[in-house]
């Protein structure tokens, strides 16, 4: 008998017999002396469908107790059966009773429905899940490693629940019968709506469909960010530009910037009361217009926001081209231009395609900038938002738009994966010195400088404006210095009761920090465990598993947001209006980055290290804690920082999921922007940027450095070599 068998049996029994079965918003009355109904009690009362779970909980008991050889099959049957039954009853019986009328015909009416699952149900489900994985391990799956099977089970189950279930709800919602139309007809009607696909702007004077708006914007954004990113990458690696560290800083900025903040700065410059607009109006008599709102504005802000991402992609590509190849070309008497044209450029091409697709996907998924800068120019992400939030409140339409956006993004994502998977020539060998990169031809260097440097200057100027704009009374109209916005947002007061958080932003700021602080470690943990499974374990279906985990990255935030409110607004899992839904959303949206960081770092660790720990009697959990974790500190920092910061800056999914009680900073700021209160919005944004900078330093300090060699100059570099047996 393993201790874990016993542990999960006990958990299952306690969860079913004692813990409150239903969620926080339970309408059920407490049964015994104020204690909320457990699965067992509710089952005895008026929810008899919960009683069979006891059978599944009891099934493995004799086998575990007698240490029978059949404990594996028994656990598998109990786990799969219990989970299956829970899902079945959860989906079939909702608030109002049977979910579908035919069930009532079949089984007769029931006394009452049931609300969403609570702690008791969740813990019971978890116990069943681990019955299943422990049973599989006992039957020899994953070399009998209970931790590994458990981790795989937990990840697959949670991704299914929090990614696939909501997304499939979107599909079913888009098929909801509408008035006199049947389900499929309604779906086709919604998917082929004129305002999605119309080509009116080409053929006539009507507007174009929102898909074309999005695609045009995405394509332009992809091309421009790729060109600029390449220019930056070349400056950073192939020139003797003296301020290269500054360029690196530029690449960090968008990570710590909420997505619409750049839009705010652009409005400060080019809006109707923008500095540039006013200057032109005064000196050249140009009428101040709202030209910036629409395609130009969105494109400008997206380019500003996503160029650094293209830079990050392309610097890897440019650095990955072994200089020795260029040196070889030069010894073969190719000039600088010929070398670039015939060797460097072809080697970069797949990377450029990749950068373009990344820009394209980012632009499609972007929500904050189109919302702030869009004006009358509608794109898919904002249209989804208005279909849900605005006067329309048409979830069917939102779902249909979501499907279109999802198809575009996943299509681009698949193309990108295929491209990068097969067409990339970039190789990073382990060889020490690979030569010095060739300098660019002079004219190309000048062109690169001329592209990159003004853009960099412009970016820094905008960030300066953000920090400065919060101290101005009313930008453009009244440029006097003031602390008014900060006082409004972050005011503090003392009275006889003590400290008062009088500022209006405190509430959302605290929620934001709380949710981010909770979700960041969860994200990092799940991401790194996934990375461990991907790098260190081999199992059937691994490719599918990897694809599943990375897919949530390609799902646009707005789609996730819509999917979550559609899926989690009703039993069996009711989460809307809680802080939990925000945490869950962040964990599954940001996990892919933690996975990538973990995979990259773990691939560099000799696999023998953890195998050795295993043969020394450490179990998988001990191996991870004592051997892998300490060596993965840099990746842990990266994952924590990224998920923390993304949770703070993200707006697209969040804006659907916030509630009056749990408002987030970004959605609060967007609200300010919508009513034209730029001063407060900008002040709040700059506080966020500064806060995140501090948070990064703090996390770095907490997790610390990994120590594998003393910094002595004489230490022999005797790193264990990779095995090739």
């Amino acid at each position: 008998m393993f201790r874990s068998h016993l542990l999960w049996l006990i958990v299952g029994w306690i969860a079913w017999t004692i813990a409150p079965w239903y969620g926080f918003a339970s309408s059920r009355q407490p049964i015994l002396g104020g204690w909320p109904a457990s699965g067992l009690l509710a089952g005895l009362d008026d929810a008899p469908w919960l009683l069979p779970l006891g059978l599944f909980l009891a099934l493995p008991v004799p086998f575990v107790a007698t240490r029978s050889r059949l404990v594996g099959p028994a656990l598998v049957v109990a786990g799969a059966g219990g989970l299956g039954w829970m899902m079945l009853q959860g989906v079939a019986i909702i608030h109002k009773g049977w979910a579908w009328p035919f069930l009532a015909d079949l089984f007769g009416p029931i006394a009452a429905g049931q609300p969403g699952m609570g702690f008791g149900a969740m813990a019971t489900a978890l116990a069943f899940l681990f019955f299943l994985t422990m049973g599989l391990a006992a039957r020899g799956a994953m070399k009998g490693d209970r931790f590994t099977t458990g981790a795989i089970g937990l990840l697959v189950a949670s991704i299914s629940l929090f990614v696939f279930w909501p997304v499939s709800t979107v599909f079913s919602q888009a098929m909801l019968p509408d008035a006199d139309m049947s389900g499929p007809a309604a779906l086709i009607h919604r998917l082929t709506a004129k305002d999605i696909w119309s080509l009116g702007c080409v053929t006539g004077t009507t507007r174009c469909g929102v898909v074309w708006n999005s695609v045009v914007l995405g394509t332009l954004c992809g091309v421009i960010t790729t060109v600029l990113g390449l220019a930056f990458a070349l400056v950073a690696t192939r020139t003797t530009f003296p301020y290269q560290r500054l360029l690196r800083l530029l690449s960090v900025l968008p990570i710590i910037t909420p997505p619409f903040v750049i839009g705010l700065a652009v409005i400060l410059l080019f809006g109707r009361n923008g500095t540039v607009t006013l200057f032109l109006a005064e000196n050249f008599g140009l009428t101040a217009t709202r030209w910036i709102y629409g395609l130009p504005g969105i494109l400008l802000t997206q380019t500003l926001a996503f160029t650094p991402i293209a830079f990050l992609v392309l610097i890897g590509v440019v650095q990955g081209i072994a200089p020795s190849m260029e040196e070889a070309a030069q010894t073969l008497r190719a000039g600088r231009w010929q070398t670039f044209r015939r060797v460097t450029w072809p080697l970069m091409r797949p990377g450029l395609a990749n950068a373009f697709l990344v820009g394209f996907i980012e632009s499609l998924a972007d929500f904050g900038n189109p919302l702030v800068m869009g004006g009358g120019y509608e794109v898919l992400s904002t249209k989804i938002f208005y279909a849900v939030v605005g006067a329309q409140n048409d979830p069917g339409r939102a779902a249909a738009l979501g499907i279109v956006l999802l198809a575009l993004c996943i299509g681009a994502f698949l193309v990108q994966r295929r491209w990068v998977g097969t067409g990339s020539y970039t190789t990073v060998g382990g060889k020490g010195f690979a030569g010095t990169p060739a300098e660019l031809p002079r004219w190309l260097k000048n062109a690169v400088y001329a592209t990159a440097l003004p853009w960099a200057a412009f970016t820094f100027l905008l960030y300066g404006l953000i920090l400065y704009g919060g101290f101005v009374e009313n930008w453009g109209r009244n440029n006097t210095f003031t602390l008014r916005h900060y006082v409004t947002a972050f005011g503090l007061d003392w009275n006889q009761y003590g400290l008062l958080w009088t500022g209006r932003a405190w509430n959302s700021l605290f929620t934001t920090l709380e949710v981010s602080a909770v979700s960041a470690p969860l994200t990092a943990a799940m991401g790194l465990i996934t990375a461990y499974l991907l790098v260190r374990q081999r199992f059937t279906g691994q490719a599918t598993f990897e694809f599943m985990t990375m897919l949530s990255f390609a799902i646009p935030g707005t789609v996730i947001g819509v999917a979550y409110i559609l899926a989690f607004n009703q039993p069996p899992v009711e989460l809307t209006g809680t802080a939990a839904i925000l945490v869950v959303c962040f964990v599954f949206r940001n996990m892919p980055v933690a996975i990538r960081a973990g995979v990259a770092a773990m691939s560099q660790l000799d696999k023998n290290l953890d195998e050795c720990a295993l043969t020394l009697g450490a179990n998988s959990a001990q191996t991870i804690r004592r051997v892998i974790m300490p060596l993965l500190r840099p990746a842990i920092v990266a994952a924590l920082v990224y998920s923390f910061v993304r949770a703070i800056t993200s707006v697209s999914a969040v804006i659907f999921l916030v509630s009056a009680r749990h408002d987030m900073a970004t959605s609060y700021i967007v609200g300010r922007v919508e009513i034209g209160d730029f001063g407060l919005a900008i002040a709040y944004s700059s506080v966020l940027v500064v806060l995140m900078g501090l948070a990064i330093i703090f996390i770095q300090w907490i997790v610390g450095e990994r120590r594998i060699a003393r910094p002595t100059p004489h230490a022999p570099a005797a790193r264990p070599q990779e095995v090739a047996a």
Partner: protein
Amino acid sequence: MTRTDQKIGGVEFRSVSRRYGKVTAVDAISFKVEPGTLVTLLGPSGCGKTTTLRMIAGLEAASEGQILIGGRDVTLLPATDRDVTMVFQSYALFPHMNVLDNVAFGLEVSGVPKVQREEQAMAGLAMVGLAGFETRLPSELSGGQQQRVAVARALVLEPEVLLFDEPLSNLDAKLRRKMRDDIRELQSKLGLTSVYVTHDQEEALAVSDRIIVMNRAVIAQEGTPADLYRRPVSRFVADFMGISNLLDGTVTRRAEGRVTAHFGEAVLDLPETAITRADEITVAIRPQAIRLATEPGPDRLPVTVRKATYLGSHLEYVLDSSAGELFVVDPTSETPVPPGSSAWATFRHEGVALVPRDGQVA
């Protein structure tokens, strides 16, 4: 983890296979490792020897068959729960722990109290001659020292079976010799059941009680070092054991436990072995069993010296003959026969073995 006081050890494979999709890395092999002995798995890379070792450790799951350690079926038991430790080719020292923590790691995760485990770890370090190195980091040790730490770490757990995965391949030749003697000495002193993987036949001959030669996922031959060297059962084993002269020959007569074998112009009268019944055979001749003579004879092969190399301790020749090329190592002579000269090769019968030709069953 359960721990028995007596290390009865012993490993048994009962037609164990390991498949990766369509590729079979280990194909239904069976063997026994007697308690207290050191058995070497020897073979070229990709022959399945490391997979076999990893299956003993539990790092690789058997697709079929049964694995027994100390008489207990451990086929489904994960590495953590097996009483087996391993010395890795890369040493796999935890770079973030000092030497003492590395050695004490296994004791720590199995719940031995701090004082006791440090005592045991110190004793382990003393055993491999590394007392005083406790607080060093692995990166501050030489290759040989790292190797010793890895051995100490595997030893202190007093495992039922100790595994070595090409433990010496990252060391230079001189150190390799010393380390292999040290390992063998420790192993026989402690009476540890050990399985050792290498692709170096000399190393295998030096450390093993028994050797299992593997080729293409199956066992090619199993036996004591002397068995394998003197009586290889196949061309592959002969070749792998360093018997580099493999000539086609025929058997013309079998009588009274002796056979008459022809190759080229030479006719040898050899003791009959059970290995080959066919008449078409391969004659495997050790390079050290050939000498050059100036006189012809019926059991001699006329040859032309193509190349003669003086190597200090011995001479090496490459000879051309009608039966094929011959490679000779001659430690007895100081003056090389000049290239181009004709001579006759003589053969010491103990250094000649008959094996089936490739593609023929013995």
